[in-house]
Every structure is written in C-alpha cells, then in structure tokens.
C-alpha cells in the first residue's frame, strides 16, 4: 500500500469552473443596464474537470498538453492563487513558483534590496534572507553590481538575479512554468545543474513545458492534460508517447 506521507501534493476531484456572462460585461454601467433588462445569461466552462493527481515528495513532475489545456490553471491551484470551485487540495510544504522573471522587482531599488523584497514575497523571514544573501550574490554572478539599482542591469543580469533569488532557498515545492530559457547558455546549464541537485534533495519540482527534450531529461513522471481533463499519468516516456500519438491523429 502506498504510504500517504510521501505525497507532496494531492488533488482530489478538483474542478475549476468559470462562470462568465455570455457576452463579456466589463463595466458596472453595462451590468446595471443588463440586469434591469434581465438580459444576463451565463456560460459555464471548466478549465479543470475532476482532476485527481498525486505528486510524490522529491520527484520532478511534468505537466504537458496543448495551449489552453489547463496547465497554468493547475499550477495556480497548487500555488493557492486560485481556489478551485470544487474538490480538495492538500499541499505538504512551501510552494515557490518561479515567478515571471522580474515580477515584484522594482527598478529603483538595488539588487540586494530586491532580493529582500523578492524573498519576503516568497514567504521567507528577513533573517533567513540575510543568511543566504552571499549565496544569492555568488550564484547570480553579479558581484558588486548587487548594490546598483536594478534599472542599470541588463536583462540577462536581472534574469540571473531572479533565478538565484527564487532557487537559493531550496524550496519544498518548486513550480516552473516554461521559464527555463533564462539567460545565456552557460547560465542555463547552471540552472539545469541546480534542478538536478534539487532532485537529490527533498524538493518536489513541477514543470510545465512544451519542450519535450527538457521534460524527458528532467522529469521522472508526467501528466497529460487535455481540455481540463487528465488523459494520462505515469512515466514520462509513456505519457509523452501517448500525447504524441494523439497529436498525430489530429
């Protein structure tokens, strides 16, 4: 029997339903007029339907699927940004989405100040950030530029800082939404090495990507999402094979 403790994430019967007016209503004025006319009709559509998924502790898991299959919605449910309309979500550990690089960064603040800001956004206490500061500076290869305002950085520099700030803390659960194309090639290699190291530690990583090569080289297991429904879960090669077979049919 499977030991329950080894799950980092458990989703039971999770659905996310959007209830949207048939025609979009953007303003209160429109809403009021339509309401009086009795002309509001709602369309419902499910971004996720009855998803059951268990992701084990310490594994690197991939979510594949076409555009609009609900991959990002699933990540949002896991990171608690989106509360599902139905179902149970259990999460064991601190979830760290690798933020869109630069999200929450302020151009006027220095690299160091931004690391503090970014660290607290990720939910780390101030003291912990101070302890890891040197490590972030080293990994990002910024040197003394760390005290220069962010607006003076090149895009590569801020990308490096972003990745360093997000991954220095060895997150329990790391969410990656197609962001591995960060910086130059040498730095990408470093990121891959870090991801590999996470696998040896306790970190659970969840990767959403269209690049099957990356998925195959990094992930042990995968799930294939199609129109909000989980079509297959299992070994990466098998899931990808099924996904590709379905692609060809169409």
């Amino acid at each position, binding site marked *: 029997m499977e030991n329950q403790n080894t799950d980092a994430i458990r989703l039971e019967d999770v659905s996310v339903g959007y209830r949207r007016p048939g025609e979009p209503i*953007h*303003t209160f004025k429109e809403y009021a007029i339509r309401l009086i006319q009795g002309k509001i009709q709602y369309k419902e559509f499910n971004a996720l339907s009855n998803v059951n998924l268990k992701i084990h502790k310490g594994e690197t898991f991939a979510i594949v699927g076409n555009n609009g299959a609900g991959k990002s919605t699933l990540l949002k449910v896991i990171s608690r940004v989106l509360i599902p309309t139905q179902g*149970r*979500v259990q999460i064991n550990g*601190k979830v760290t989405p690798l933020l*869109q690089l630069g999200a929450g960064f302020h151009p006027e603040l220095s690299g160091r*100040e931004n690391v503090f800001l970014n660290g*607290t956004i990720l*939910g780390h206490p101030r003291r912990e950030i101070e302890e890891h500061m040197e490590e972030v500076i080293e990994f990002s290869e910024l040197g003394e530029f760390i005290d220069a305002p962010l607006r003076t950085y090149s895009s590569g520099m801020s990308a490096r800082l972003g990745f360093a700030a997000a991954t220095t803390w060895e997150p329990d659960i790391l969410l990656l939404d197609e962001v591995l194309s960060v910086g130059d090639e040498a730095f990408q290699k470093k990121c891959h090495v870090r991801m590999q190291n996470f696998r040896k530690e306790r970190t659970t990583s969840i990767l959403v990507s269209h690049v099957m090569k990356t998925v195959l080289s990094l992930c042990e297991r995968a799930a294939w999402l199609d129109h909000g429904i989980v079509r297959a879960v299992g070994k990466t090669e098998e899931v990808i094979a099924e996904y590709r077979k379905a692609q060809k049919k169409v």
Partner: protein
Amino acid sequence: MSEEFIYDSDKRGPVSIEELRGIFQYRDLIYQLVRRDVVSRYKRSVLGIVWTLLQPLGMMFILSMVFANLFHSVKGYPAYILSGLLAWTFFAQTTGAIIHQIVWGGALLRQIYLPRTSFAISAIGTGLVNLTISFVPLFIILLSSGLPINSSVLFLPISMVLLSAFSLGIGLIISTLAVRFPDIAEMYHIILTAWMYLTPIVYPEKLIPESYRFWFFNLNPMYHIVKIFRMPLFEGVFPDLRTLIIAMVVSLVPLIVGWLFYSKRADEFAYYW
C-alpha cells in the same frame, strides 16, 4: 496522517481569520513593501523628501489665498486648512493606492499566494510614513500662525489609527467592487472630489446653516474623522469622550465590514484578473 499537510482546503477556517493569520506570517513582506514605496519615491527625484513637505503646503497656500477673504474670521486659517487637508490627503491617497494595487496591481497575486490584504495594509503603512513627515510643515505653520502646540498632540497617534482604520475599510470595500467592475474605481475618484467639498476642510463648520448642520455632518463619516484629527492640532484640546466614541464607531465599522466583505470575495478575484 494528513495533519502533516501544511495546507488542506478542507481544513480552512473562516477566510477573514485566515487572512489575519496570513498578515502576521507575512509581516516582513509588509515592511518590505512599505520600504519599497517610500524609498522608491524618495530616490526618484532630486528633491525627494521635499516633495512630501511641499505638496500639502502648496495646496494650503493656494486654498488659503483663494478663500482667505471669505473666511477671514477663522484665526490661523492656513493652519486650519492644513490640519484638515493632511487627514483628507491621507484618506484620498491611501484609498486610491489600495484600489490601484488590488485592481491593476494583481500581477503578483496572480502568480503566487500572498495574503490578499498585504498590498492594502502596506499602502496604509506608506501613507503613515508620509503623514508623519508632513507633520513638520504643519507644526511650523501652527507656530507661525501664533497657535500653541499643546500636550494634546499626544492624542494624535489615536487619531491616526482611526484615520487608518477608516481608510483601509473604505479602500477594501471599493476595491472588492472594482475588481469585478473597473469603472467603480473611476466613479470613486469623482465621488472623492465631491466628498472633499462636503467635508469642512477649506471652510469653517459655521458656514453650514445651523438647521442643516446635524444631518450634514452626521451623514458624513469623514467629518468625524477630520474632527478628531484636527482637534488636538488646531484647537489644541483633547477630544471629549463623545467625539472619540463617534469617531471610533464611524472608523471601525467600515473596517470590519470592509475586511469581511473583502475576504469573502477575495477567493473569486483570481477568476476575474
């Protein structure tokens, strides 16, 4: 052993309480957000901090020049304007910032879990820093108008807490509505302008005919907030118990209503962003 789960959607308490707990957990974030807003404001321009001092002073000079002849009966009229104006500016700026951050600034909240009131609370924090700085010109104007600074200024922290509570409450209510309907935010800005002139900030209370005064003032919560802010400064007296209780009611009720309303709806925000 599901107790091990840090988060379990089946074991969530009432959202309004969870939110309070979240804010406590993320207190370092609030500090960083306030710091970001204050530091970036002062870094951006050469004059930096001077703008915070000059902005209300400029307003005060304009208003007192325009209205001085009308209301020359008020002793220390510029100080009268400035003391009310500071409270009003705090209210207008913080509610505006809260709405802006929640309605348009959802970028971060779309990507990562944060207590959803973080940005609202940090906007109040930033407002308090700016308000405290602008006490410097206020005290100068008070002294130069020949008004004494009494021990009653010790009451100011309480006035500031009530002002913050009211602003946070209104900010949360308006932004909850504005996430669904962005034009509510536009409407609010128009209402703010009208609201300012309905509140005795540039004109003395006596301007309103005696027979209207009761309803005119009592229907306007901002009247009571401005009053409890202005009394210890301009009049140099401690507010009486009645004034205090009224001010507490009109500020704490919106806060509680706003907090409950906002937390009840916050789960849906991600569906609209």
